[in-house]
């Protein structure tokens, strides 16, 4: 491909014993192209480049550099690469992959939200699978009453995991979620996961429904489920869900593909909320905790 931005930047810098501002600016042009190709959002790219430039110009005028607190003789090229990696990892951190559990004997609630087809239902199954393995007794709630066979889909997953699925025909999602909490208390579940319908951020009625579910069920966790191949729209989408609901975290799905995943950086940058988990396959055990270094390398390319 024309722009192998980051590799190209490395090649241009290799062998140099010092770097001046002009060379740094040129390397940053390559990095810019790489990040845009990786689907990092336009304004997020601008901010990132500005941060890297300040650091690079400040640190690259000597060839003995303090990297990660220890004095090393590092080539300027390697140090520039390190700054990019560190800055990207810093933008995606700090790492917080925790699920907020209720203290004591309360019922912990998790609400899954996101655009159509992002992977909410599948990820609901994955989280339930993980929590069950960790000794919890989860209850799944089929709060998508619109999509054809959505309830069937969650019920199939529930059967596969031997985890019950709560559903009542013809009940609106906010009422359904509240009823689910009563069921959870009755049947001694300690975690309840609400799988909601995919929706557009411009759908006022459906975004309002999410606010209603939040008011009635008071979830301890609200996770935005986002497809790793999402482009520039990741920022608009994340901002909208976050402003409406005050998300507790984000889950990036379909990372088993070759999408660069720049949407992750965009989401973190614009909401400040941590990326909790990564979906890395269709099977219910394909859920990983987020680690910034792996994704940073993939985004930089």
């Amino acid at each position, binding site marked *: 491909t024309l*722009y192998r931005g980051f590799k190209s930047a490395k090649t241009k810098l290799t062998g140099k014993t010092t770097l001046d501002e002009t060379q740094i600016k040129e390397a940053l042009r390559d990095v810019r192209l790489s990040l845009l190709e990786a689907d990092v959002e336009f304004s997020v790219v601008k901010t990132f480049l500005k941060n890297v430039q300040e650091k690079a110009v400040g640190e690259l005028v000597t060839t003995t550099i303090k990297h990660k607190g220890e004095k090393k003789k590092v080539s300027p090229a390697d140090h520039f690469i390190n700054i990019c990696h560190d800055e990207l990892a810093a933008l995606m951190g700090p790492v917080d992959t925790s699920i907020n559990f209720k203290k004591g004997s309360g019922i912990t609630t998790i609400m899954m939200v996101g655009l159509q087809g992002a992977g909410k239902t599948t990820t609901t199954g994955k989280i339930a699978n993980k929590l069950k393995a960790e000794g919890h007794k989860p209850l799944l709630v089929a709060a998508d009453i619109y999509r054809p066979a959505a309830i069937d889909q969650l019920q199939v997953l529930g059967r596969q995991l031997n985890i019950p699925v709560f559903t009542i025909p013809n009940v609106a999602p906010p009422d359904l979620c509240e009823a689910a909490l009563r069921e959870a208390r009755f049947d001694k579940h300690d975690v309840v996961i609400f799988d909601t319908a995919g929706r557009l951020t411009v759908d006022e009625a459906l975004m309002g429904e999410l606010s209603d579910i939040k008011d009635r069920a008071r979830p301890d966790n609200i996770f935005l489920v986002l497809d790793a191949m999402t482009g*520039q729209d990741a920022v608009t989408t994340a901002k909208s869900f976050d402003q409406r609901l005050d998300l507790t975290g984000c889950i990036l799905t*379909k990372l088993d593909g070759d999408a660069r995943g*720049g949407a992750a950086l965009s989401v973190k940058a614009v909401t400040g909320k941590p990326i909790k988990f990564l979906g890395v396959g269709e099977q219910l055990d394909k859920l990983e905790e987020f680690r910034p270094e792996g994704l940073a390398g993939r985004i930089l390319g």
Partner: protein
Amino acid sequence: FASKKTIDDSLIDEIEEVLFTADIGVKTADRLLNSVREAVDAKSLSDPKEVWKTLRSEARAILDGATDTRGTLPKEGEPKVIMVLGVNGTGKTTSIGKLAHRFVNEGHTVQLVAGDTFRAAAAEQLEHWGRRVGAKTVRGKEGADPASVVFDGVESAVVEKADIVLVDTAGRLHTQKNLMEELKKVRRVMGRAIDGAPHEVLMVLDATTGQNAIQQATMFNEATDVTGIILTKLDGTAKGGVVLGVCDALHIPIRYIGIGERVADLKDFDGAEFVEALFA
């Protein structure tokens, strides 16, 4: 470039922002900017309005360059077989429901084939659409071999006197080699059930997808000779600009767009409308 005097940097910045935030991507944005620079040099354009007009017509040209001569016609008296594929969650099953609705309204006898035997309740989802639009759905057991379900489904269409067959397939990532091989096998098997099938292979692409769409289209096309694209979820905030890059690289036409979740939310692709919205 010499025309620095005629288009200033701030207009270039403005153009870049519009192009990139619409998911147009580095390579295609470069191509559009270069054609603008050439036009500026040739006619010494200095009016920003003219520059935007040039951009729009160049984007239009890329879309029009996607030849519409793909796909074949069925033999006399045989059903037209349309295969639908794409990565996970893009809207394949829903788009089949919408297409079936349109074809039934046009007077066709439509049969749906539930070729997704993997995902939870996939066949149930397609059956729902079949009931909804008045089309028969052929399915197998969950976990059955997709190739044999598709073979039976396509073959039975002749007996059932369906004149259009829509074949749903499981979502898959183009990086999953074994699943791409499965897709090739499913395609071959259709040709054994009806000589010449599938007559159309429609790839479903989600408008929120970024640059990965180009790799998706490239790999699915290599595997199955895609004849057209359905671009879904254009009723959202994403602009779907990545299709410019797809058309530029592969010349595959955009056939339809999905603009909602209901049965009537499918429109023919209109290049002029699309470009208008892209630069809005």
